[in-house]
């Protein structure tokens, strides 16, 4: 038997304490009003005469006590949400799926977010499932950890998880699962039939709590074909609070504000509007909304890129850029220049925004944002650090770093990796043996990322991942 966010012994203790409390309250003597009577003689006679009739009173009293105690116990059970265990003797397999949609970041009345509440419930489930194999998954990332009986490993996986969207993903799959716990706030628009079709016993545990929220529900930049026509931003704002709210909408291009208006939003109302962005300006467009009652921050800001305002310039340094060329040419708004490692000298000011080094490392670290794909080790410079080769590494742990958004470790296959180990680099993904697979080095202006593996099929299948664009 599992009890929501409580361990078994805590739940039984709470039940016993509640039953005891209600019993005490039932039997406690309330100070009755004192009434002076000339004599108790007649009352004594009446009560003596009715003493034989107290059987019914006794029954009524016992029934009242039982009913009151049951009410208390049921109140506690309603809070604890008990659910039968998968197997009493252990040996079953259960899957805990966390709804990682953005709405899980909303704050509840107790100050914690729905996500934190879901994590707490997941921990309780892990603790109460001794002997069972447990796997943890999210709606965005799929299977994250397990199945395993190692509670420490599972809890470590929970520590890494964050809401990351994933509304359009499929349900995570795991064979031989006897029970699925889906912890959600109920906002995920995904048919439950897909989950129930696995044949497992599905228990939906809600962490929903009504919360006022104002959000940007849609944001897109429209670039007309004619060069003299200015770009426009399409915005959709919604008020999910039960009260009318006045939201402040600010739209900026870079550091220039192109729109700053107050929008009256009735309860449940969605407002759509177009904001002209001007003919020229920074390609970065940012929309931000603020309102008095607004518990979810993640949907208050939206960004877009006006491709025609400034094309992203990428220089790819590679001896064999064929495969990368196929990849980059398909990405819109990017102008790519391919040069050979021998031609590369130093970053050219203003020439490119990003440099990609494929299987090669320059003698000096560039000051621009850079991606190092499987840096060569034998003749690598010292600034990138020591490295070692690992064959068929298994992607085991990962931080929730932005460059890994959308990476599903369970589906990543690595043939070999050249891991970089240096104090200058921060590993954000490691193999099962602890070798860094992805490392980053960040300053306030630039970010450099090292992929310890290549994108060719002989080294990894990362090129097929949705996460490639983030990397």
């Amino acid at each position: 038997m599992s009890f929501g966010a409580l361990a078994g012994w805590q739940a039984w203790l709470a039940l016993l304490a509640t039953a005891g409390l209600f019993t005490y309250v039932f039997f406690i003597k309330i100070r009755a009003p004192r009434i002076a009577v000339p004599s108790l003689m007649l009352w004594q006679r009446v009560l003596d005469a009715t003493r034989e009739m107290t059987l019914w009173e006794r029954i009524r009293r016992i029934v009242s006590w039982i009913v009151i105690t049951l009410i208390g116990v049921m109140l506690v059970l309603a809070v604890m949400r008990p659910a039968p265990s998968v197997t009493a003797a252990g040996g079953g397999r259960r899957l805990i799926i966390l709804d990682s949609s953005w709405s899980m970041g909303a704050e509840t009345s107790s100050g914690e977010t729905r996500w934190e509440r879901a994590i707490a419930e997941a921990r309780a489930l892990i603790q109460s499932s001794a002997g069972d194999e447990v796997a943890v998954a999210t709606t965005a990332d799929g299977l994250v950890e397990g199945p395993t009986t190692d509670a420490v490993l599972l809890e470590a996986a929970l520590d890494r998880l964050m809401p990351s969207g994933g509304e359009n993903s499929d349900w995570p799959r795991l064979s031989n699962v006897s029970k699925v716990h889906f912890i959600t706030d109920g906002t995920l628009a995904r048919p439950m039939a897909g989950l129930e079709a696995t044949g497992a016993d599905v228990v939906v545990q809600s962490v929903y709590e009504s919360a006022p929220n104002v959000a940007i529900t849609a944001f897109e930049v429209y670039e007309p074909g004619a060069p003299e026509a200015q770009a426009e931003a399409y915005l959709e704002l919604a008020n999910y609070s039960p009260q009318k709210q006045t939201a402040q909408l600010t739209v900026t291009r870079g550091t220039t504000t192109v729109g700053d208006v107050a929008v009256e939003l009735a309860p449940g109302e969605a407002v759509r509007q177009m904001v002209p962005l001007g003919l020229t300006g920074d390609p970065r467009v940012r929309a931000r909304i603020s309102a008095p009652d607004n518990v979810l921050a993640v949907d208050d800001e939206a960004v877009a890129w006006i491709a025609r305002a400034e094309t992203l310039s990428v220089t790819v340094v590679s001896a064999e850029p064929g495969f990368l060329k196929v990849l980059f040419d398909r990405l819109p708004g990017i102008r790519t220049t391919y040069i050979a490692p021998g031609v590369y000298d130093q970053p050219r000011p203003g020439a490119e925004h990003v440099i990609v080094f494929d299987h090669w490392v320059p003698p000096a670290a560039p000051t621009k944002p850079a991606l190092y794909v499987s840096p060569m080790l034998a003749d690598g410079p010292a600034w990138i650090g020591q490295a070692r080769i690992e064959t068929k590494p298994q992607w085991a742990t990962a931080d929730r770093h932005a460059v890994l958004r959308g990476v599903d470790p369970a589906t990543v296959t690595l043939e070999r990796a050249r891991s970089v180990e240096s104090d200058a680099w921060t590993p954000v993904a490691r193999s099962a043996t602890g070798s860094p697979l992805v490392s980053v080095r960040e300053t306030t202006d630039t970010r450099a990322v090292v992929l310890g593996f290549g994108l060719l099929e002989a080294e990894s299948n990362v090129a097929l991942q949705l996460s490639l664009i983030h990397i």
Partner: protein
Amino acid sequence: MAIGFDSDFLKKLEYLHVVSKKAFAGQARAERLTPKRGRGLEFADYRQYSAGDDFRHIDWKAYRRLGRLLLRLFDEEQDLPIYLFIDASQSMAPPGQSPEKFEQALRLAAALCYIGLAHLDRVTLMPFDETVREERSPGQGKGRIFRVFDMLEQIKPGGRTDMVAAFKNFAARGRRAGLTVVISDFLDPAGFEKPLKMLQARGHDVYAVQLACETDRDPGALGDVRFVDAESGDTRDVEVTPALARAYTAAWEKHTEDLQMFCGRYNIGYIRADVERPVEEIVLKTFRQGRFVA
């Protein structure tokens, strides 16, 4: 509490007199017939003359007819001893409640006193609780009524009811038998039967005047209540349900009925005097219907 009656009511009281079912010997000449033969005006009987008799009462006409000396006897008219026992225990005025029952007892005692005084009867006020407190005799004559009022106003409620002990105390004082009126609520835990029988056994003509008020008849409050005995201070926690309230009212009615039946069985006058009724109505109507006054 100030006791007083208007002059009309006092005038009506003067026409009444307390009816005693027995003739009692008094102390002074008055208007009541006594069992004694004496110097009254009403002829009563003859008896043989014996030496020493007052020969002025010899019936000479009978001597001429019968040749025997017969003495003419006359009824003796004396005052009637009236003992007014007033229950002054705490049950007559429970703390926190209006002392209407006790005040009614004092008013009834004052009215009976005035009737007795108006007919030169010897009235004695006997306030009691566990014992008879200081007895008070205002004297004779209706002019003493204001003294009676003063005496009654000095009586304060307090103590427990113990009629047996009180009447034993009274019996020990050796008062001559007379008309005895007990004004009480008769809520004595030891019962009312023994003390009333005790008075009757001492030769008194006993009247029981039962006082009752609304709070005696109806418990009033429903729900969890802690009842406090006004006299003993004992408490009893009771959940007063409508059924229990009805049972209490029935118990009180039975208590009253038992008292009434007991009085009827032992030839004791019984009068019920609820405090809701005015004293004038009780004295002029109920007392007369009960053959207590005429």
